[in-house]
């Protein structure tokens, strides 16, 4: 094979090395998390920025978010196989953002059931054409329709999944980070896998409802958990304390936008002025803050 043919083959065929694994941490008994870096999706990280992982029961394993592309999904699968010989029975997708779902393909198997919020399928189908273009242009991933794996189990309110002597409680949330967020609670270790309902260090990204997100946080704040796993950022061991920065940011965003709307100001004004006092507290503030203002403004201008 000529060199350039080899190169083009390599470029268009993602090479997955059987031995590739990713770094995971056992944060509680049989609960493993790969902690992503706080970066924008780009050509270096190929969008691999989210916290993803798995939980092992007596019978089988469930994956929680599969990664940003099939290569990362495969690496996660390889990692699971180096840790346990138990089969994978579920892949749970917490929501449709590309850093959480496009590793799904690596887990496709007759024995694996995909699980998500009842609005997840719609979100995946409507967002995928756009993500595929972006992904190719900006993150160096070649995704195709084969990477679209929809949930066969849909959660409307709550659902219990038994991994063998380990029951996970899944909750479909009202519109918050997105309009299809799903969280997973493991009573055995008192761990709540919140995924992108909680951001730490990385600026929270609003793609659902600011009012909904604040009220979900206020509701969850009443509970206590030994561990909470955010979608981006470090493990939480002091829940009531660790959720405060995100809550404070969202409350400030809402307060300042409501004030501008009352004053008859427009989205363009809000983008320039709202909640910049939070700038130094967050990573990727400049990348996502204006987007958050836009989404929140478009929601709040409909309040009576």
């Amino acid at each position: 094979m000529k060199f350039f043919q080899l190169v083009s083959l390599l470029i268009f065929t993602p090479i997955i090395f059987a031995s590739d694994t990713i770094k995971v941490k056992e944060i509680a008994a049989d609960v493993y998390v790969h902690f992503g870096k706080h970066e924008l999706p780009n050509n270096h990280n190929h969008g691999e920025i989210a916290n993803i992982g798995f939980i092992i029961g007596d019978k089988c394993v469930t994956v929680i978010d599969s990664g940003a592309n099939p290569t990362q999904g495969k690496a996660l699968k390889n990692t699971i196989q180096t840790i346990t010989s138990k089969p994978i029975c579920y892949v749970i997708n917490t929501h449709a953002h590309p850093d959480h779902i496009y590793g799904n393909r690596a887990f496709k198997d007759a024995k694996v059931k995909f699980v998500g919020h009842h609005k997840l399928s719609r979100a995946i189908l409507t967002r995928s054409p756009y993500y595929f273009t972006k992904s190719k242009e900006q993150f160096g991933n070649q995704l195709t329709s084969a990477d679209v794996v929809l949930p066969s189990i849909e959660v409307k309110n709550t659902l219990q999944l038994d991994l063998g002597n380990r029951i996970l409680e899944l909750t479909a949330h009202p519109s918050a980070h997105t309009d299809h967020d799903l969280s997973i609670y493991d009573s055995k270790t008192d761990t709540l896998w919140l995924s992108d309902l909680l951001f730490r260090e990385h600026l929270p990204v609003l793609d659902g409802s600011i009012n909904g997100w604040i009220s979900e946080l206020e509701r969850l704040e009443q509970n206590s958990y030994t561990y909470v796993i955010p979608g981006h950022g470090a493990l939480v061991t002091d829940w009531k304390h660790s959720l405060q920065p995100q809550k404070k940011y969202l409350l400030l965003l809402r307060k300042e936008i409501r004030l501008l709307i009352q004053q008859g100001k427009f989205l363009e004004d809000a983008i320039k002025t709202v909640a910049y006092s939070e700038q130094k507290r967050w990573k990727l503030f400049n990348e996502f803050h204006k987007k958050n203002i836009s989404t929140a403004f478009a929601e709040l201008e409909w309040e009576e």
Partner: protein
Amino acid sequence: MLFKTYLTSAIMALALIGNAHATNDENIWQQELHQQYFAGKNIEESNEIIKLEAPYRAEDPALVPIQIKSQIPQTANKYIKKITLFVDNNPYPFVGEFELTPASGKADLAMRIRVNTYSYVRAIAEMNDGKLYMSKTFVKASGGCSAPIGADLDTAMQRLGKMKFKLQPDTKMSEPHLTQLLISHPNITGMQMDQVTRFIKKSHFIDTIKVTFNDKAILTAKTDIAISADPNFRFYFIPNTTGTLKAEFTDTACESPTSRKVCTTGKSYMQTYTIKP
């Protein structure tokens, strides 16, 4: 893992080349849009009649605020009759056309649009004498996690048809007055993967909008899927008397997101607002 590093940089290089030639050109405009919408007509590129403003980097591709600032007053003798907007590289580039009158007072417009990728956004003004002027600006839609759809489809769906006028409080009679019209509508693009049939794949969007003051036209628009969900328009009119500001819109559903050949007419909606001195 040397081999993988090499592979990564090869992919990167390719992606960079892809980016560089992706969209920063005039091809779609010159070869398709100009002919399709302004066949045989000369368009002068100039910011002297209207000036289009949009953020260079669009943080949210679903909500890109754009403004058209007119550089001349609307008088009975000389006025901007129509402004047509395009996003070259959107799946359906036509954003809308907005007919204005001397009663508009000032031909400024502002709205929020969807920009799918790196693209020129262009506004073409047609004068009452038929001359055409174009202002354009380049927008980079950023690659974050948001998609050009709308954050909360069901909420917009439940509220569909609701409208609100918002007027700046200091109404001075007989001067052009900045007016905001909010319409709740999900403005569904219809762009989606074709894996299952249980979802509506049709586009469903606002196709006509008409704003009048005491039955005199202020703004008459044809719009399409590039208008953001829950559309928000700003424009001017002259409140020279007491009377009624009225907005009406209709929506449509088309079989294909990128063709307007097979569409079904939807419903019409209306909202009024009383102007008092």
